[in-house]
């Protein structure tokens, strides 16, 4: 029997193919594990056993006929801010406590077509704000080999970092945002959290499809196979190491782990380049301004009229005030207030307009470095207390601002035993390259060799 707690998509697919296990048996094993552990971990909102077994049965029928692909019959978890038809999708908000979407998100449709087996929805912070910790907990606890998650300012990479997993934020526009409850539309992207870079590539192969219902999506215009470069040599690849990501904001433990990893990559043939990304010191502020502005507008639809919680009041105004007061949590209220502040006629030029201009500069400075480098290496998250400005992490938000693909993969452990992650940001549409480098490192990464204690 397969040890599911550490299984990858690749190994499970091979077991299914060799008929060592059936999709239903696999599903049952996962469900048993989830039922045993979820009450304590509370990683999933709900377990959908019956539907999952039915999906597994159908997947097995396809496998029996020699049909289906890598994801057929493989269990998965989807974040609760990604819409699933007929299944409560609360987005972690009281506003949508009982919201049952009448349609699937575009990415969910793609997985469904591929014959995936949905086991449950991972709890999210309200509207995906902050991180996808539960999604990370679920995968690292063995609830499923991967999860479909979302990343606005770093959720996928933070979860991957903290739970020793590999997660990919794709290029903005790679994956349809249709059916992802919007927080900040110019940042939001859907991507996988998995155990390996290769598994991320399998999932991306399935979900990177242009969707006419999302005008910003372009899918996979080159028809890339993201697994193609997995396992191939990184000899001659140029990896930039911007000094700004190795300053006071980062603990020595983390710095050492990431730099040690860079030496390993050098040993594998990569060429390390010392570089600089000058204006990234402003990224947290820029992200906070633009994302709050967009969120304040996106979340305005929750006024208690059409759906969601309806408050009380004699007039429309009283009613929306009460609805929104009761329906939103404090963190969301803060973002809405700040977003409205930066968009007001009086403050627009001083905040929003400046932030947009800086965003263009940040993007340009990334593009400049990536003209010569194939990827940029940095710690996945900043880990000293004073670096967490405005609830935004400058390590993760900078690639979100630039709209570039970014993969986070484990590269060591702290004295406390917590994992350390490193991130690789690539060129626009450069997922294959960053996954290739992450994969190369995963193959040589043996935790004991990287113990920096």
């Amino acid at each position, binding site marked *: 029997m397969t040890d599911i707690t550490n299984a990858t998509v690749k190994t499970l697919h091979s077991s299914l193919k060799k008929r060592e296990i059936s999709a239903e048996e696999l599903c049952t094993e996962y469900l048993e594990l989830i039922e045993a552990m979820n009450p304590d971990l509370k990683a999933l909102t709900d377990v959908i056993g019956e539907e999952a077994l039915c999906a597994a049965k159908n997947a097995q029928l396809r496998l029996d006929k020699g049909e289906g692909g890598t994801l057929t019959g493989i269990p998965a978890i989807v974040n609760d801010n990604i819409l699933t038809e007929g299944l409560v999708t609360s987005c972690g908000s009281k506003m949508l406590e009982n919201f049952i979407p*009448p349609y699937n998100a575009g990415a969910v449709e793609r997985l469904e077509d591929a014959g995936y087996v949905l086991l449950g929805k991972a709890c999210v912070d309200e509207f995906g704000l902050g991180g996808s910790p539960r999604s990370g907990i679920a995968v690292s606890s063995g609830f499923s080999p991967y999860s479909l998650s979302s990343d606005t300012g770093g959720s996928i990479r933070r979860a991957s970092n903290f739970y020793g997993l590999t997660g990919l934020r794709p290029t903005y526009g790679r994956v349809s945002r249709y059916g992802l409850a919007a927080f900040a539309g110019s940042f939001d992207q859907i991507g996988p959290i998995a155990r390996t870079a290769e598994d991320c590539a399998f999932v991306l192969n399935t979900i990177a499809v242009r969707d006419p*219902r999302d005008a910003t999506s372009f899918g996979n215009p080159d028809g890339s196979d993201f697994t193609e470069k997995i396992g191939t040599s990184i000899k001659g690849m140029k990896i930039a190491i911007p000094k700004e990501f190795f300053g006071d904001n980062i603990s020595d433990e983390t710095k050492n782990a990431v730099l040690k990893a860079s030496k390993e990559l050098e040993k594998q043939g990569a060429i390390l380049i010392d570089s600089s990304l000058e204006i990234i010191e402003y990224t947290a502020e820029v992200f906070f301004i633009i994302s709050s502005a967009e969120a304040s507008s996106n979340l305005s639809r929750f006024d208690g009229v059409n759906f969601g919680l309806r408050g009380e009041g004699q007039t429309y105004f009283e009613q929306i005030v009460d609805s929104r007061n009761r329906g939103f949590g404090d963190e969301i209220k803060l973002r809405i207030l700040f977003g409205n502040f930066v968009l007001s006629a009086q403050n627009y030029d001083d905040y929003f307009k400046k932030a947009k201009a800086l965003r263009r500069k940040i993007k340009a400075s990334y593009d400049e470095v990536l003209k010569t480098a194939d990827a940029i290496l940095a710690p996945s998250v900043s880990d000293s207390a004073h670096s967490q400005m405005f609830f935004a992490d400058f390590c993760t938000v900078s690639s979100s601002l630039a709209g570039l693909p970014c993969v986070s993969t484990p590269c060591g452990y702290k004295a406390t035993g917590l994992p350390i992650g490193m991130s690789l940001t690539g060129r626009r549409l450069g997922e294959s390259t960053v996954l290739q480098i992450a994969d190369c490192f995963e193959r040589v990464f043996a935790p004991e060799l990287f113990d920096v204690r």
Partner: protein
Amino acid sequence: MKLIPTIGLEIHAELMTNSKVFCSCSAEYGGTPNSRCCPGCSAFPGTLPVLNRKAAELIIKAGAVLNCEISRTTTWDRKNYFYPDLPRAYQISQLYSPVCRNGHVIIKTSDGEKRIGIKQIHLEEDAGKLIHDRSPKYSLADYNRSGMGLIEIVTDPDLHTAEEACAFVEKVRSMLQYADICNGKMEQGSLRCDVNISLAPEGAPLGVRAEIKNLNSVRSISRAVEYEIYRQTRAIENNEPLFQQTRRFSDTDGETYAMRTKENAHDYRYFPDPDIPALVLRDAELDAIFASIPKMPEERFTQYTGEYGITASDAEILIGNKILSDFFENALKEYDNPKAVCAFILTELLRRVNLGEIELENPPFSASDLGRLVKYGYTDKISRGDMKEILRAMIEKRKTPEEACDEGGFWIKEDLKLVESVIDKVIENNPNPVAQYRNGEQKVFGFLMGQASKELKGAATPAAIKQMLESKLK
């Protein structure tokens, strides 16, 4: 002190697209409440707006017929405000880069022609409709109109009288109708108008402006402007303060009432919509759109009065209504005799329309049916005197002209034997007139011809009867 009114207009025109501007719901007017909406125009989480290319095409057409510059790159902005008829709580509009700028329209007034500048035209979506009169306790929302495509045409402050304002609206309305951009039905709200008006002494800077919202007939525009001129003049003359205000016009008493003042004005927190990519237009696309613009009223007038030889007043009647003008042109495709077709339309067809027997928008027969009917009358296939009766059969029995002629026996048959025997009889029965004619009194020919025609109704063309009679009388 002579006070000069200065007026600027904002015309909202609903686009004649099949679907809404950012989703694929039907854009037809009316319908059972909330039957024409989807998760998109109801603002369900996770839905995203996708621009309807047809709507983009129509605003470009509008820019072209209203002589505007067309932007090659256009972006979209969100106008944020809470109202129960606006499901997303923001309206997608264009503040920073509208599709069209710097246009103009020439209007005719009693003072002659005037050029009215158009500041910009932008594309936006309409809101839903609230129904307040069902209960004192609650209001109902109908989102069928939510997300319908609108263009907003903003003029420069170039208008100075109610007459000019009305002439401008009429002119723009007709151009939008002719270019198939908007159906112009003001009573259905497909075309609505906001009026900005202020008064100031000649040569002085502009006065304090009032904006009168949502006028939905040319008559209301005229009355609202007249009332505002009266109200503001009185205030200035009595040294009473005027406030920058949004006002509404009451059709019942012809007065305007304050809705909100500038201090209470909304801060719409406009910002670029991250969900909709910029619309980038290439020259080839623009050229194709320009080429698809139908003939505009001026061009038709020149053609009708020139090439077709129709009088100016008749041409104006035809062009005054696009459906009528199109009907006329389509009838010409069947029978290329503009004067004859025009005469029949202006007399017989319009008489039926005025009697309420025919709706022009939904006529019981096609333009080509009418064209063929006129052709038969003017080419002696039927008697012209019978055309009226045949038209009646086409209306009442929904017949084609051919069916109506078959059933009523209206076809002229050219039975020469019958003609000869009838004429022989006419000559025999009228010895005196025949003798007079033979003695050179030409005018009695008409009498003899009439006698023969009466007998021969439908059996032969007048030309055939005339020829036979002449030869027999020799």
